[in-house]
């Protein structure tokens, strides 16, 4: 454990040193098209959301199940007196459900506040727009990086008509 620990700490220190050393130059160069995202894991995927849309990150409180809603709505939670709907992206994207999801990312866009289920919120990182490979078929994704990080377009996602209960599609 000692050797492993040492190696890991050394690695960490090296990464940190690189982080401290590198970004300044890169930011200077790529500041214009850089996208700062909050990354999180859910199911088999790693997603990223623009920090501009993120209101808060927290552990998942007790979820109150709401009847007669689509399956991707887990229910509602009470955050400091504010009722927030909880959206399960695996159900929304027709992916296998993630039973270990225990964290919540509150996002806001298009006058809508929504909680996204996450198994583990990882990091805030900067992604250059130029490195994103666009996914034409999917509207609510800005693109995917070389590291298979799917950067979500929260604006588009929250405007999806399926999310609006009682909207034209439902009835």
């Amino acid at each position, binding site marked *: *454990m000692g050797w492993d620990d040492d190696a890991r700490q050394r690695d*960490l220190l090296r990464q940190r040193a690189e982080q401290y050393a590198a970004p300044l130059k890169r930011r200077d160069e790529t500041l214009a098209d850089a996208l*700062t995202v*909050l990354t999180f894991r859910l199911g088999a995927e790693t997603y990223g959301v623009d*920090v*501009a849309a*993120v209101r*808060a*990150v*927290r*552990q998942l409180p007790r979820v109150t199940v709401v009847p007669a809603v689509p399956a991707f709505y887990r229910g509602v939670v009470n955050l400091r007196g504010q009722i927030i709907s909880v959206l399960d992206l695996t159900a929304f994207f027709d992916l296998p459900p993630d039973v270990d999801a225990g*964290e919540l990312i509150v996002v806001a866009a298009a006058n809508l506040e929504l909680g996204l289920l996450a198994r583990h*919120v990882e*990091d*805030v990182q900067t992604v250059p727009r130029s490195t994103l490979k666009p996914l034409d078929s999917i509207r609510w994704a800005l693109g995917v990086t070389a590291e298979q990080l799917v950067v979500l377009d929260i604006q588009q996602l929250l405007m999806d008509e399926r999310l609006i209960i009682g909207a034209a599609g439902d009835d």
Partner: protein
Amino acid sequence: MTDVTASEYTIPKPTLMRQLVGAAVNLTAISNAIAAFVPALVFSLMFISDGGQRVLLPLIALIAGWVFGAIVHGMNSRRLERTLDDYVEVVERIAEGDLSLRLKMPALDVARRDNLVVVRLAGAVNQMLDRLQRLVTEIQRAMQRLDTDTQAILDATARQIAMANEQDAVVTETTATVNEVRATVTETAERAQSVAETAQVSVDISRSGTDAVSETISGMSLIRRRVEDIADNILVLSEHTQQIGEIIATVNNLADQSRMLALNASVEAARAGEEGKGFAVVAMEVRNLADQNRDATVQVREILGEIQRATNAAVMVTEEGSKGVDQGQMLVNKAGESIRDLANAIEEAALAAMQIAASTRQQTIGMDQLTGAMKTIKHATTETVSSTMQVEASIQRLRDAANKVNSLLSGLKI
């Protein structure tokens, strides 16, 4: 009486005849005296073993002289003369040893003094002969009895000597046996002594064994207490690890919350743009700390799990240990009882061996006394043999004397 008879005979005879008659009277007197002493002479003949014949012959000569006197005295009558001649013949044959002969009583007129004398003489001679014959017969019978008795005595002594010899052999054999038994008894005494010593050593050893068992018992009790203490301590440890687990859960929760706060801070810093960069670094540091904290709690949790498994195993082991100690204590108690029993038995054996040693020593003394007694018996037997042989020799000499008497008697016809 002799004097009176002589004076009576002297009166009617002429000078020569008177002299002859006087001699005859004297002879008569002497012969009467001799006749009176004949029993005495015959008895002395019995005990004096030689010269029987030689004494008898003069005696008979005396009697013949006397008869001759009587013949002379009765010369007046031819019949008296013839009678006397017959008498001389008969007496001569008697002198040769034939005691069976007797004088014929003469058909003489006893009114005459001479005839009366002759008749009395014949009667007396016949009486004497009867007595002599009875005497010799008695002597012969006595000699026969003597022969039989001495023979019996000789047989008895021979048997006695044979038995004494046999006794001597038996005593010698017995002495040898007693010596052997004594050697065996001595060996037994030595063995019993060594057994007693060995048993004493065993008693000491068993005593130290008993001590060791009591020490083991107290040691077992100590172990039992220690094991119980260990079990208690492990239980306390188990409770503590559980508490630590709870604390770790709390710490983990705190770490999660810290990470969330840091993530929120990072998000805020990112949204703040250039102005939030410094804050973003701080937030990242906080998040790293929270991650490390979480990793550490995971490790602690793993270690705690191991500790809990170990304590559970330890609890079970101490339980088994205390059971083992119980069993051990039971076994040690049993062993202690066995050793105590053994010690008692050995002590009894030692006592018995010592008693055996003592009694065998006494036996040795008894054997020595027996050997002494055997020696005395042997000595007595030897003496018995020698004295019996002396008796045998004496008896033999007695028989020789009796044989001489017998040969003398055999010359007589009864």
